[in-house]
């Protein structure tokens, strides 16, 4: 059985549908709202049954994981979940896939022997996740002079995802205005770009430099001389709402940030009213002169980044299920196969386009 937590959410629904469609086995669909979970279970193309589960209740969580081959966690918020569900899955002898987690959860599990011969894959969504995986298509067999990452668009934030966004700050996540140059983080190197036209983005956009830890790992793994990574917005509303909250909140704890989440949600709703929903991932490579020819641009377009994250979660689950992921604790960007993932995404109806040229 494959257990899916947070299955009735924006990400979980798509993850459940794809896992069912891939034929990975019967599903156990968990959520706080058991009626919604039951409706979803009934609509799936694989045998599925719904279970009420509260992640904060250790007994319910243990009962959910019991008997699962893989536990797939689409529930957040990441800051609360951390390694709790992963440990519950391991205790039940299951492998684990998580939409979030990033370094905090990976670190919490690494050291000691929490994983044993089990597998955990964290950050198996769009960003982080796909944003660190797809650029690897450009670096195969040749060092790059420069690699650019532009990811974003217009998406509606929920209060929970707003708090998660507000918390993705600090050295464990990334550094604003920094670039990667010659083997290390170069602080205060880049400036925000305003009203720029970027290939694949339907309107002029605002791009804010943010060198994520994922981009830093990418730089090291690919040997790129320079990496520039931008979060892309359709207007300055969201960057301003985030900055205002960071300035006003006395500290960066979920409880102090939560009252401000509505500011961020409102900004995203106004963007959505003006620009609709779209999501673009653009990666461009500048090879060193004289290196073998190869692709220099990867461009993915989609309407809904949450649904796209669900597809990535399902693909990560399939990779774990098929034995192509080694035992241990991983981040999806570092352990999934870029070519296989690309081929699967190109066939998926939720991907508007995925070109490599």
């Amino acid at each position, binding site marked *: 059985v494959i257990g899916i937590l947070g299955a009735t959410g924006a990400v979980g629904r798509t993850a459940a549908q794809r896992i069912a469609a891939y034929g990975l086995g019967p599903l156990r669909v968990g959520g706080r709202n058991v009626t919604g979970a039951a409706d979803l279970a009934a609509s799936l193309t694989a045998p599925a049954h719904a279970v009420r589960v509260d992640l904060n209740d250790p007994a319910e969580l243990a009962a959910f994981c019991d008997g699962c081959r893989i536990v797939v966690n689409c529930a957040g918020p990441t800051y609360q979940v951390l390694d709790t569900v992963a440990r519950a899955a391991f205790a039940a002898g299951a492998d684990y896939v998580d939409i979030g987690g990033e370094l905090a959860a990976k670190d919490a599990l690494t050291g000691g022997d929490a994983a044993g011969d089990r597998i955990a894959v964290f950050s198996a969504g769009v960003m982080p996740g796909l944003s660190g995986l797809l650029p690897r298509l450009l670096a195969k067999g040749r060092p790059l002079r420069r690699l650019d990452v*532009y990811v974003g668009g217009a998406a509606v934030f929920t209060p929970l995802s707003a708090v998660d966004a507000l918390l993705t700050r600090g050295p464990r996540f990334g550094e604003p205005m920094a670039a990667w140059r010659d083997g290390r983080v170069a602080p205060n190197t880049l400036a925000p770009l305003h009203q*720029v*036209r*970027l*290939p694949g983005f339907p309107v002029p956009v605002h791009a804010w430099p943010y060198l994520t830890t994922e981009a830093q790992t990418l730089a090291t793994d690919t040997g790129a001389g320079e990496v520039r990574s931008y979060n892309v917005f359709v207007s300055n509303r969201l960057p301003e709402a985030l900055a205002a909250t960071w300035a006003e909140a006395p500290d960066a704890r979920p409880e102090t940030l939560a009252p401000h989440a509505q500011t961020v949600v409102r900004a995203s709703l106004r963007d959505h009213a003006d620009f609709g929903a779209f999501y673009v991932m*653009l990666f*461009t490579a500048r090879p060193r002169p004289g290196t073998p020819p190869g692709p220099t641009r990867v461009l993915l377009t989609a309407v809904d980044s949450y649904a796209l994250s669900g597809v990535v979660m399902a693909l990560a689950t399939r990779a774990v299920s098929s034995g192509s992921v080694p035992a241990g604790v991983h981040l999806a960007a570092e352990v999934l196969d870029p070519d296989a993932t690309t081929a699967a995404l190109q066939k998926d109806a939720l991907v508007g386009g995925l070109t490599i040229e």
Partner: protein
Amino acid sequence: VIAADYFHQLRTPQVAIEVRCFELGPEMVAVFSLVEELFETDQVTAAFAEFVALVDALADGSGWDRMPGLPDAVDPGSGGGLRLGLLPEPAVRHREGPPADDLEQAVADVFEELLEVPVLDRAADFFGLGGDSLLAVRAVVRLAKEVGGSVPVREFLADSTVAGVAAVVRARLGDQR
């Protein structure tokens, strides 16, 4: 008077030297602003002295009453005159896509450095990305230095896309061989 105002004035690339005059009560104040690198100090001193002498002569003599001659209106000629849209649309439209080779990438890099925006497509147009004619001249100079091909400004203006400029460079490098 705020110094920053003058910096602002002189950041307009066309302005190399500027004289501003003010009336302050019974006195006249003249301010010389200039791009230091372009002028020798003694040239500036001489120009200032000449200007002061001119002002003195005008103030003392009959300069205030003399009627200066104005040139006659210029005949715009048949079909001439000023109108918008004289520049034709570029004839060549390049297929969109990433820069196709090292040369196109080098041109994109030069554009990017001067325009301070990402230049990621071979069909990206220098002027569409915010370039102006002065930046275009600088681009031509930079290209000669970076890739060794001198691009005539006229040809740069005719097709100012990454692919178009690269094609001109390629043709000129070929000619030299």
